[in-house]
């Protein structure tokens, strides 16, 4: 009892109801070390019995100061930090950052690199959604889905390892193109995956979609209407499950997404089940994009030839003095960027992943800001959990698919 009296209510007094002070409702901590908060997130719950009156999110436990750290590194070296933001989507983060750098300095990317970027980010989207689905099942006590999902995720991580040497934290996409071309085994590995995966999605659906217990837990829970979602800056599958047709891949195509034929899955219910279905449908759409991109993968270079920004290949350094100078200059001093700012956004598995990048005429960014989708998506949690049970909070948290590395940066 002594511990409860020590809690200082003043700092969040304005967020809880009067009834909490009289002891009519109870304040309860969920987290920061709780398996279903998907990382180190603390939820301060005000409970009336088992019903949630207020759910106050307390974030920042995973704050690593990435924005500040990037200011101290050159544009090329800062990219390593981008992998560590949303650790379920490192390829997508690389892409967002590289596109911002390319926009800032005005750098063109060859077509082959664009196509490989699309293939890898879509595979990464599938991998991220697989973690979503696995963890979602796990939170709702459907243990076996997790094991199936991670089996397929492993195939994707193997493809990433094939290309970059790393399963996660790839840093494969670089400003001006890619680190290097994909190996010869790449196409066969992706084709294997394309062949196997549709059947596996049906398998997950057979386990979950019509399962009555699963439906009971999800349908009508955590309803988010479109207006509230937009007010709170919610994007990605969570917004699309509320009936808003907004996908940056369609709205402002980048990396040649306009060439590919795919649909944007929309649901109008806005509840937890709708968010689950949108994720499932996105598996199929992403796979469609991967297949199309692989079928018409153009030949050619995968890096811009502009040696002021892109380091020369290793083979040139031994024979060309110019190449050696460029290599040395780029990795010691870096390249200068104009004194201006750009905002560039991509569609990450969680929503609009935006990079605000500002140069100051020197080789280091003046300011990097990450507009991370999880941050804004989580801010709506109080609105959509009120009146639901604690067990539903777990389902809702899982359904908005947050990654704490993405939130805290």
């Amino acid at each position, binding site marked *: 009892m002594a511990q409860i009296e020590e809690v200082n209510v003043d*700092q*969040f007094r*304005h*967020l809880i109801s009067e009834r909490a002070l009289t002891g009519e409702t109870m304040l309860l901590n969920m987290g920061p070390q709780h398996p279903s908060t998907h990382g180190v997130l603390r939820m301060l719950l005000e409970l009336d019995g088992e019903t949630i009156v207020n759910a106050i999110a307390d*974030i*920042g436990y995973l*704050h690593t*100061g990435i*924005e*500040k*750290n990037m*200011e*101290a590194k050159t544009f090329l070296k800062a990219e390593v930090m981008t992998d560590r933001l949303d650790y379920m989507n490192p390829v997508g983060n690389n892409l967002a950052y590289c596109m911002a750098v390319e*926009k*800032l300095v*005005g750098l063109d990317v060859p077509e082959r690199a664009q196509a490989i970027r699309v293939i890898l980010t879509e595979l990464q989207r599938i991998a991220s959604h697989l973690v979503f689905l696995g963890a979602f099942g796990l939170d709702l006590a459907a243990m076996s889905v997790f094991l199936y999902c991670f089996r397929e995720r492993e195939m994707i991580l193997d493809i990433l390892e094939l290309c970059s040497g790393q399963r996660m934290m790839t840093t494969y996409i670089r400003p001006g193109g890619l680190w290097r071309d994909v190996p010869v085994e790449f196409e066969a590995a992706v084709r294997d995956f394309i062949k196997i995966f549709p059947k596996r999605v049906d398998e997950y659906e057979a386990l979950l979609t019509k399962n009555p217990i699963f439906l009971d837990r999800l349908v009508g829970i955590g309803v988010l209407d479109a207006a509230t979602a*937009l*007010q*709170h*800056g919610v*994007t990605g599958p969570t917004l699309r499950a509320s009936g*808003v047709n*907004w996908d940056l891949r369609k*709205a*402002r195509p980048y990396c040649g997404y306009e060439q590919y034929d795919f649909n944007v899955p929309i649901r109008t219910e806005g509840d937890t089940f709708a968010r689950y279905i949108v994720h499932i449908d996105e598996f199929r759409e992403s796979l469609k994009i991967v297949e199309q991109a692989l079928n018409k993968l153009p030949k050619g270079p995968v890096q811009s030839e502009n040696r002021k920004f892109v380091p020369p290949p290793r083979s040139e350094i031994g024979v060309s003095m110019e190449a050696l100078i460029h290599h040395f200059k780029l990795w010691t001093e870096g390249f200068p960027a104009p004194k*201006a*700012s*750009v*905002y560039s*956004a991509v569609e990450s598995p969680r929503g*609009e992943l*935006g990079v*605000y990048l*500002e140069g100051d005429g020197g080789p280091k960014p*003046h*300011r990097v*800001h990450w*507009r991370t989708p999880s*941050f*804004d998506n989580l*801010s709506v949690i109080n609105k959509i959990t009120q009146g639901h049970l604690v067990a539903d909070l777990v389902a809702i948290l899982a359904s908005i698919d947050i990654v704490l590395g993405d939130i*805290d*940066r």
Partner: protein
Amino acid sequence: MDKKLEKIVQDLQMKFSTSLEEFRDEVHVFVKAENIVDALTLLRDKYDFELLSALTASDYFPQQTPRFHVVYQLSSLARNITVQLRVAVNGDQPKVPTATRVYEVANWRERELLDMFGIEFEGHPDPRRILMPIDHEGHPLRKDYPLGYEEPQFTFNYDDIDLKKIYAKE
């Protein structure tokens, strides 16, 4: 500049006498701090800018005064255009009216700016730190806040080091 955007920017210019900057097809409109809430409301209600994509800030210490720029990145889903509003804020008592009543997403984003830059948002419903611990001193993303390499603060030398911390105290 995008045709669709031209009219909107002109309207902003007429109502709030804003100034303009363009870089790589992006339009940055400089608005005075006292007009920002009206400008955001106008853009949201009349020109369908439903989404406040990003709300951030940049510190130009010591080269430039006013020291901070608060950046509002707006998207219109219906018209598929974006515009950026910028508010220049003085360094001694950085204050901007809150945009929470126009876009609720501003609530957490403004808390982040309060935490990271020490920019105060007048009328904010929940002005607490969001990422750093509540007893943290200083504002990490300010340019005069050191990145690291300073002597670690332990119990025995806490006061000594505290005296040397000239940066960014409230």
